[in-house]
C-alpha cells in the first residue's frame, strides 16, 4: 500500500460507514439489501485486527507494516489465511490419527537412539583428549586425525537425530530455523545446493570468472544480490541508474561461528584502447566485516567504519560501444583472528585501475568463498551517472576497428567504372552509379 493510500484509508472508511448507516436508517424496511450487507462485511476486513499484527496470521496488505516493525511474516499467505479462519485448531503434533502418532513414536525412539550415540561419542572424544600425545599410538598426528573424524561423526549424528522431525522441517520452511543449530544449516545448505549453487557455478564458468579474475573459486556460501530491494539474479544486466547506489548482499553461511570477511567488487572488462586490451578496475573494497550464519544481511552502503571501508562504491558504468562489463562481487574469508590493514589497502589501491584480485589475495591472506555478479552496459542513464560521479569518457564512443582484407584493392568493374576517364566525357552524365561507391543520389562510400 502506498503512503497516500494508507493515510487516506481511515478517513475513507469513516465516510463509507457513515453513508452506510444513513442508508440503513433511511431504508431500514428494505429486505433486498444483500449487496449492502456484502459491502458492510467487506469493510471491517480492512481494519487492523490483532490477527493482523501477528506474523502467523497477517494478511498480505498488512505485511509491509509488520516488516517495518521488524517482524517477518511466517510461512505462506495461504497458510496464514487458513490459520485465521481456524485459530483454535489442534497443533500439528497432536493430530488425532493413530498411524501418525505411531509413526511419531518410532521417530522419537530413533532420535533417543541417536542422542545416546552422540553421548557415547562425546565421552569417547573426552577420553581421547585426556590421553597425552606421546602416549597415543601413532603419535600426535594420529590423535588429531582420530579426534577430527570422531567430531565429524558427532556432527553427522546431530543432523541425523533431527532430520526426520516434521516440526523441524516446518520451522525451517517458515523461516524460523535457528541457524546456530546444525540441522537448520544442513537444510539451508541442501536448499542452496539444489539450485542456487548450481546457478552460480554455471555463471562462474560461462562468464570465465575463473581464469579471468581468480584461478580457482569454489563457492561455499549463499550470496544473493539486491538492488533497491529487488533481487537481481546472477549475471543480469542492471540499468546503470539502479547500480549507482551500492547493493545489499544477503549472505547465508553454512558453517558455524563468526568470522571476518572482505568484500571486493571487480570489473574485469575496462577497455584499454591504447594497448588494445582490457584491464580490471576495483569498484569497492571493504574489510573486517563480521559475519555469522545468523546475520545474513550485508548492505554495502551501511559499511562506513574507518577500519572497514577501504574503497567506497564506484557506480558500474560501461562506455558506449564497449562490450558488457561483468561486475564480480567476491566475498573473501580472512584468516581466523586476523584483521586486514585497511589503511594499507587504501594506500595500495587508491588508483582503482589495474587491480588484481590474485595479488590482493596473497597480500592480505584472504580466500574467496562467496560470489555473485551482475552486468553493466551503456544505456540512456549512463552518461548522467558518469557526469554525477565525475567519471571521464562519457563523450567517447568505441567503434569496432576495421580489419582490412589481406588481398589487394580490386580494380572497379562494370560499364560505368570503365567509362570514368576523360575519353568518355560525353558519357559522364550516365556514368554516376558505380557499385559500392555511389548511387543516383551521390557518393555513398564513407571516407
Amino acid at each position: 500500500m502506498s503512503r497516500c493510500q494508507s493515510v487516506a484509508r481511515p478517513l475513507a472508511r469513516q465516510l463509507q460507514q457513515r453513508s452506510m448507516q444513513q442508508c440503513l436508517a433511511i431504508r431500514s424496511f428494505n429486505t433486498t439489501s444483500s449487496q449492502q450487507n456484502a459491502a458492510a462485511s467487506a469493510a471491517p476486513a480492512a481494519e487492523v485486527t490483532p490477527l493482523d499484527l501477528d506474523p502467523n496470521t497477517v494478511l498480505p496488505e498488512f505485511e509491509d507494516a509488520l516488516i517495518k516493525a521488524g517482524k517477518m511474516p511466517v510461512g505462506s499467505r495461504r497458510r496464514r489465511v487458513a490459520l485465521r479462519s481456524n485459530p483454535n485448531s489442534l497443533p500439528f503434533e497432536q493430530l488425532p490419527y493413530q498411524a501418525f502418532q505411531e509413526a511419531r513414536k518410532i521417530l522419537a525412539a530413533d532420535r533417543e537412539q541417536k542422542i545416546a550415540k552422540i553421548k557415547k561419542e562425546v565421552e569417547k572424544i573426552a577420553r581421547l583428549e585426556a590421553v597425552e600425545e606421546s602416549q597415543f599410538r601413532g603419535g600426535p598426528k594420529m590423535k588429531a586425525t582420530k579426534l577430527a573424524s570422531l567430531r565429524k561423526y558427532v556432527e553427522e549424528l546431530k543432523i541425523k537425530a533431527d532430520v526426520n522431525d516434521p516440526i523441524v522441517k516446518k520451522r525451517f520452511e517458515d523461516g524460523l530455523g535457528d541457524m546456530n543449530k546444525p540441522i537448520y544449516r544442513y537444510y539451508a545448505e541442501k536448499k542452496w545446493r539444489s539450485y542456487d549453487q548450481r546457478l552460480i557455478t554455471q555463471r562462474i564458468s560461462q562468464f570465465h570468472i575463473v581464469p579471468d579474475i581468480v584461478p580457482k573459486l569454489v563457492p561455499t556460501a549463499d550470496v544473493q544480490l539486491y538492488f533497491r530491494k529487488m533481487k537481481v539474479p546472477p549475471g543480469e544486466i542492471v540499468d546503470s541508474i539502479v547500480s549507482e547506489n551500492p547493493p545489499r548482499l544477503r549472505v547465508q553461511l553454512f558453517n558455524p561461528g563468526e568470522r571476518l570477511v572482505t568484500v571486493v567488487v571487480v570489473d574485469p572488462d575496462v577497455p584499454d584502447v591504447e594497448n588494445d586490451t582490457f584491464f580490471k578496475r576495483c569498484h569497492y573494497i571493504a574489510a573486517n566485516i563480521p559475519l555469522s550464519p545468523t546475520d545474513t544481511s550485508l548492505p554495502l552502503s551501511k559499511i562506513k567504519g574507518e577500519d572497514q571501508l577501504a574503497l567506497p562504491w564506484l557506480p558500474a558504468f560501461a562506455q558506449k560501444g564497449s562490450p558488457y562489463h561483468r561486475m564480480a562481487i567476491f566475498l573473501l574469508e580472512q584468516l581466523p583472528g586476523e584483521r586486514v590493514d585497511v589503511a594499507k589497502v587504501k594506500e595500495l589501491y587508491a588508483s582503482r585501475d589495474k587491480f588484481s584480485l590474485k595479488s590482493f589475495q596473497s597480500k592480505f591472506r584472504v580466500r574467496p568463498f562467496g560470489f555473485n555478479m551482475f552486468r553493466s552496459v551503456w544505456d540512456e542513464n549512463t552518461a548522467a551517472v558518469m557526469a554525477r560521479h565525475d567519471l571521464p569518457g562519457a563523450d567517447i564512443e568505441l567503434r569496432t576497428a576495421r580489419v582490412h582484407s589481406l588481398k589487394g584493392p580490386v580494380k572497379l568493374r562494370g560499364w560505368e567504372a570503365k567509362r570514368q576517364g576523360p575519353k568518355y566525357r560525353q558519357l559522364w552524365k550516365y556514368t554516376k552509379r558505380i557499385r559500392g561507391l555511389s548511387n543516383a543520389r551521390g557518393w555513398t562510400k564513407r571516407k
Partner: protein
Amino acid sequence: MRSLISQRPLMAALSGLSRVCISRPAPIGAQLANSLVQGQRYASVKSQGAYKKKSKRGIPKKLGAKRTGDQYVIPGNIIYKQRGTLWWPGENCIMGRDFTIHAMATGYVKYYRDPARHPDRKYIGVTFEKDDVLPYPAHAERKRKLGRTAHQIRPEAPKPETSPSGIPFQVTRVEKGEPDRLLRLRKDYSYREDNWRIGRLVETTGLKIKRFRTRKQYFRHRRWRREREIEGQRKAAKRREELGDDAVKVVKQLSKKALKKAKKAGRK
C-alpha cells in the same frame, strides 16, 4: 557367389550332360556363365575393358588446409575445409555449418591437441602472438583483444522547430472529453496520427476486449463450464428417466433457415 561355388560340382555335371546330349559348341553366353560360375574372367572379356574402366572424374571438393601453422589470418578467413570434424575449432576459431574452421581474430594459426579439453580431438586455434603455444596454461587469464577504436560521440543535430515550408512538424489536437492526439506532418503535407498511437487509443476507451485477463483464467472458466454442462446433462437425463419415455417431447432443433422455410411452406 558362395552358393554358386558350393554348387560347382553339380553345375559341372549338368554342363557335361548337356555336352553329351547336344554335340553343338556352347554359345558365348553360356561360356560366359560358365566362366562366372568358375569364378574367373578370361582375356576375351577383359579385353572388352568396360568393367575395368575407372569412373569419370567428379567435381573436386577442394577440401583440406587453407592456411598452414603460424600463418597470419584475419577474422573470417577459412583455415580448414573438411567433411565432418577432422579438426575442431579451438582458441579464437569457430566452425561453420559445413564444418569449415574460420578464424575469429587476427593472429597466427596453430594446430594443436588439448588433452585437458578432450583426449582425442585435434584443434585449430589462432594466437595473437606468433611465439605463443596452444593450449594456454589451464588457470592463466584469457588473452583478449578489445578490437575497438575510440571516437568522439557526435552530438545529434538539433531538429528545427518548423519544417522548411514554415509549418510545424507536429500539432496536438485537443478535443473536449477525448484524449489529446498528436498529429505529425507527413510527406504529402498532411497531418496524421502515427499508426501505433492510433492503436494505443484502444486502451483509453476502457473497453474490455478480452473476457479473460490470463490464459489460466480462461482454461479454468472452460473447465468449470464443462463441468456445469455435464452436470446439467446428467440432471436432465435423470429427469427424463423419472418422467418416462412418453412424457419427453422431442423438439428437433432447426436452423434459422429451415425455420423460415417451414414458415413459408405453412403460409402456402
